[in-house]
């Protein structure tokens, strides 16, 4: 089962929920878990789960392409520039010039070139590494090259790796910690998952983000439930959030200083402070998830 944790807005507690869900599955249900950090522009999950005790995989991922033009063959017909949907090629007097900051690397230029002067060269998208962590959870992390696009492709690859690792070890659960937002990497994170947990704060900004995320989940046909985090920061708004979301709410987690302290100590909250209010509330949410979604 693949569970993805996402939210339309940043900082609502995705990594908090994802890391502790992993701990819950492992500790409370004795289930093995492979976790995926799909926030490839700001990966934090490994740290939230206590850091790496042993790295089991480290690879460079070349999932992107950049075009290269052989100017000895090119006869300046301009078809590549015309066909590029991203205005990444313009015709200069000396021939076609590629603006790599606009290039998406999808290769239409190479296909339309009548003399096959354009070849696609593999380009590094990022690094993929898998690590074991102190609480027994394997974390697969993607680390996008700084300033690069193509995060969606890296996320697909991460999910594929996690699936392979889970299959080999006969692990039932994969937990994906998505990037904030609803764009390319988030679509890739959600696509094909069995359940989406959206983490919402009781603020208009977070509600708006989650509603946008629910629209995406709907187009992909993914079942969604919600956890309302830091609900006591704005208790009056919580009922409205629940009503407007219109999906099952697994529960409410209060703002709790213990959460920040747990991060500072690099120990997941359920291990760091199991008796804290936030821990107890989280466990209730996860119990409800287990009752409804597991077995």
């Amino acid at each position, binding site marked *: 089962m693949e569970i993805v944790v996402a939210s339309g807005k940043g900082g609502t507690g995705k990594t908090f929920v994802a890391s502790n869900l992993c701990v819950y599955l492992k500790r409370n249900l004795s289930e093995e878990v492979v976790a995926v950090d799909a926030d490839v522009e700001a990966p934090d999950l490994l740290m939230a789960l206590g850091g790496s005790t042993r790295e089991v995989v480290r690879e460079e991922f070349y999932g992107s392409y950049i075009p290269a033009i052989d100017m000895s063959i090119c006869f300046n017909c301009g078809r590549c520039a015309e066909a590029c949907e991203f205005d990444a090629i313009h015709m200069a007097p000396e021939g076609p010039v590629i603006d790599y900051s606009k290039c998406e690397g999808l290769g239409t230029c190479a*296909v339309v070139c009548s003399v096959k002067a354009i070849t696609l060269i593999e380009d590094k998208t990022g690094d993929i590494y898998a690590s074991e962590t102190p609480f027994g959870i394997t974390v697969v992390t993607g680390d996008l090259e700084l300033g690069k696009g193509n995060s969606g492709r890296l996320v697909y690859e991460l999910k594929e790796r996690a699936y392979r690792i889970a299959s080999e070890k006969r692990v039932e659960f994969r937990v994906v910690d998505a990037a904030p937002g609803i*764009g*390319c990497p988030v679509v890739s994170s959600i696509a094909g998952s069995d359940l989406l947990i959206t983490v919402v704060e009781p603020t208009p900004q977070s509600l708006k983000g989650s509603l946008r995320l629910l629209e995406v989940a709907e187009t992909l046909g993914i079942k969604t439930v919600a956890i309302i985090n830091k609900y006591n920061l704005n208790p009056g708004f919580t009922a409205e959030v629940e009503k407007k979301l219109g999906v099952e709410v697994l529960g409410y987690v209060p703002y709790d200083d213990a959460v920040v302290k747990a991060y500072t100590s690099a120990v997941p909250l359920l291990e760091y402070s199991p008796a804290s209010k936030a821990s107890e509330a989280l466990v209730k949410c996860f119990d409800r998830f287990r009752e409804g979604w597991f077995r």
Partner: protein
Amino acid sequence: MTVLTVTGGKGGTGKTVVAVNLALALSSLTGERVLLVDLDADNPCTYTLLNVEPKTVEEVKSFKPVIDKDACVRCGTCVKHCPTHALFLIPNAGLSFIETLCEGCAMCMYVCPKEAISRGHRLTGWVKEADAGDLHLVLGELRPGDRKYHDVMEAALNYAKRIWGNYRIVVIDTPPGTGKGILMALNSSDIIVAVTEPTSLGLLDLKRLNRLVTPLGKPEIVVVNKYGLPGGAHNKLERYLQECGLRWAKVRYDKRLMSAYIRGKPVIRYDPDAPSALDIQALAEMLAKEMSLNRS
């Protein structure tokens, strides 16, 4: 004209709160109207804080294939070439297209041997604009279900660039992250304001962001938002800032800021004596001085 870009790596550190309040403070300080550009196309939140309803000024469109089912012979050439697997053949049902997976490269149209695919358009998002009193707001908004957020960011930034000659101060608010969209915004900026929070994750993401920012050689100031957060990793963060010789300013952890935020109001106007509002005011004064923009 000076372009300030507010960014931060991690989500939820307070980029939008800092950007909006800073823009308002700079406007008050200088008597200038400030252009605020919200590039968080996934979830633009500036307008909810400013309580304005932006109007669409531009539709952002991208290519999508229109399939002529009669001309299609189901040869699978387009399926084989589609780099994002947005096209596939279903036995007995023909060619299918998943718009959410499409990146709009038009490859399918060029490779189809029967010319059964023609150019269609899909709506990727909008560039919107609003008059917000002391601020003029331009924002990009991605249509939910579309993935091409960089296109919307680029369209919003290009729109802003066409009008920003009319302003002396431009503030750009970015989404979280360290990818292509962020680099695009950074490349257009004169001063970079990196908003972080005193948590381990905030520090981790700030370090990553700085691997992108530092090589650009542009002036950077780090804003430690939620300073004083109980249990926070203040020592580790301050040590890092000191080791890197980074300039930094604090915005205190402040329940009064949260109280303004949940009401959808900028603290600097709603509760100007709140500790966080005073800190943002001080930051604005420093930046105005740096830009030599104080009201004469």
